[in-house]
């Protein structure tokens, strides 16, 4: 239904998005994952016709969105990364304003506002000025505003950053419900693995402007099926230890952090005893050794050599 074809965006010298290909089918919840600066927002802005790509095309039902943005704009709902609300107006006034620019009026508008307020759980705060809201409530209203015109496709740019767990769950449940009840198609951007794991059918992972992985949750995890991660902890490391680990022929990769080291090894290898020996030789006291089943976080680590969140 919605496709990105070889999409690139360059800001002066900065290649924010490089040759990205993606597609979204009707009724799906698709996740777009990536660390800060990965190019998620830029990709989303191009997809929703707000930013003109340097190269490539966005296609909606096989028609170019760049040339004809209207058909897409009519059915799209956008939740921006920032709180895009009038902070000095009340929740209800905000909804009224954005409803009006979508040509809703009179009773239809009133009913819609009541419905949305109910869905985002702000009915009893409707007369309060947005400035007085908590971060979570603002986020919820930010989503509510995008729901006024019953969009078929909802594009959400990190709708849960910086909010409390309850609001977060509320938002995730709302998204899931909208998808179920109204068959709303959702593109959900985040740098929280858990959210994407909970919500999405399919996932795209971006890093530094590139699309580095895509597929269903299982497919993505299978990228790691040939490897496993061993997580070891100690109070301090030394160079001898790290060098010997890296030189060990069974080890694929070593990722060093302050108190943790992740070692990637082929699945069939049992390196427990050799690990203990290397530690003894280097005079390192290990606090724990853990063998992890792969998570999306590990996939990311595997693909980029960096953690998803700093």
């Amino acid at each position: 239904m919605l496709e990105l074809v070889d999409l690139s965006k360059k800001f002066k010298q900065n290649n924010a998005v490089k040759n990205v290909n993606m597609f979204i089918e009707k009724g799906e919840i698709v996740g777009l994952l990536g660390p800060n600066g990965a190019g998620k927002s830029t990709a989303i802005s191009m997809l929703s016709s707000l930013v003109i790509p340097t190269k490539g095309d966005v296609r909606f039902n096989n028609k170019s969105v760049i040339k004809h943005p209207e058909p897409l704009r009519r059915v799209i709902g956008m939740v921006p990364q920032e709180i895009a609300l009038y902070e000095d107006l009340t929740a209800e006034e905000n909804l009224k304003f954005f409803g009006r620019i979508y040509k809703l009026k009179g009773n239809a508008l009133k009913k819609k506002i009541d419905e949305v307020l109910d869905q985002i759980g702000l009915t009893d705060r409707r007369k309060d000025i947005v400035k007085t809201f908590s971060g979570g409530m603002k986020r919820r209203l930010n989503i509510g505003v995008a729901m006024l015109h019953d969009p078929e496709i909802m594009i959400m740019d990190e709708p849960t950053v910086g909010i409390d767990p309850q609001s977060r769950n509320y938002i995730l449940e709302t998204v899931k419900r909208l998808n179920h009840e109204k068959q709303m198609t959702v593109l959900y951007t985040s740098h929280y693995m858990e959210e994407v794991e909970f919500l999405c059918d399919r996932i795209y992972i971006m890093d530094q402007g590139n699309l580095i992985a895509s597929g269903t949750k299982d497919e993505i995890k299978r990228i790691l099926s040939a490897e496993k991660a061993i997580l070891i902890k100690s109070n301090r490391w030394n160079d001898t230890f790290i060098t010997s680990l890296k030189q060990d022929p069974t080890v694929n990769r070593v990722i060093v952090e302050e108190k943790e080291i992740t070692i990637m090894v082929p699945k069939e290898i049992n390196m427990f005893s050799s690990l203990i020996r290397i530690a003894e030789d280097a005079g390192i006291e290990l606090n724990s050794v853990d063998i992890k089943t792969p998570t999306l976080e590990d996939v990311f680590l595997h693909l980029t050599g960096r953690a998803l969140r700093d």
Partner: protein
Amino acid sequence: MMIGILQAKCKLFLRNPLLFVIFTGMSIVFALIIGGAIGMNTIHVPVYAENETVQDSFIGEYLEETDVYQFSWMTKDEMLEEISNGKAEVGAVLQEFDYQLIVGVESVNTAMVDQTLRDAYMRNIQLEQMITAAGADTGRERENVLEELQSAMASPVFTIETTSFRSSDSFIYDNTFQSLFGFSLFFVIYTIAYNVLPILIEKKDGIWDRMILSPIKKWEMYVANLVYSFFAGYLQVLIIFLIFRFWVGVDFNGRFLETLVLLIPYVFSIVALSIFLTSLMKNAEQFNAILPIIAVSMAMIGGAYWPIEIVESEILLALSKINPLTYGMEVLQGVAVYGYSIEELLLPISILLLMGVVFMGLGIHLMEKRHV
């Protein structure tokens, strides 16, 4: 849908009227104090007449009638003392056909007093010539001629048009209007600019993105925002002028309505300038830092703080030519002080409108080109 934006803007305005009230209040207070409209600040000028007839002549009457300066007659010694101990900045020794300025402190007033005196003497000479031409020799005849002249002036059969717009030697310094117009036009820059700035903020926050995706048109968004800024600015000056007209009692020389109408081009040009300025700024902080610099420079070289006629630097004068405030002052003073007709003010009005169109075109263009 544009109405929707305007309504939202009005609600926001009513919820946060503080800045508007402050700028309106400052304009009024500054204009009252510095303009001396409440009569506490007419400038005192000591004069000494070498020839006693001067005081009773036309010159004496003329000087007593001007309300910007209060000329007080005294002896030469008294006058010199006032000047030397700083009670007065400038004084004058008046002879029958000539005068001498005694300058204590060089200031705006020196030139103004000089101007006023020169006017008095010039008119006196004109009057004498008319009387001579009328062939009046005796005292009685002179009186008759003068009376007739006066009634003729009160109901002229024809008017001689002075077309020397802004020629350097015919400028009238009216302190009340200078300050009233100057401070009104200066402070309104802030009100307008701060009402245009939200365009930038709303773009950053994504409110504009939301509107772009909605059925509302881009031009409607700009028009609604700019119309709103225009009215906020206009309302401010309107309030100030109404207060001066009906509360302080400044009568705008009977041309109050024309003054209000001719305010429009200036307010329009400032709205345009604001959108242009906004389009060049990276963020609101930068805007807040730069606006006062721009507004104050505009006021200084545009004649809001002091009459532009006393500016001599070529560079500043050249700069004043691209400053909407210069033309705004020219138009308002043209109407209320010089009594010019709209046709006579067509030039500065057209320049203001042209500037408005150019700045607005550039501003919107740049605003659209930037990312964010």
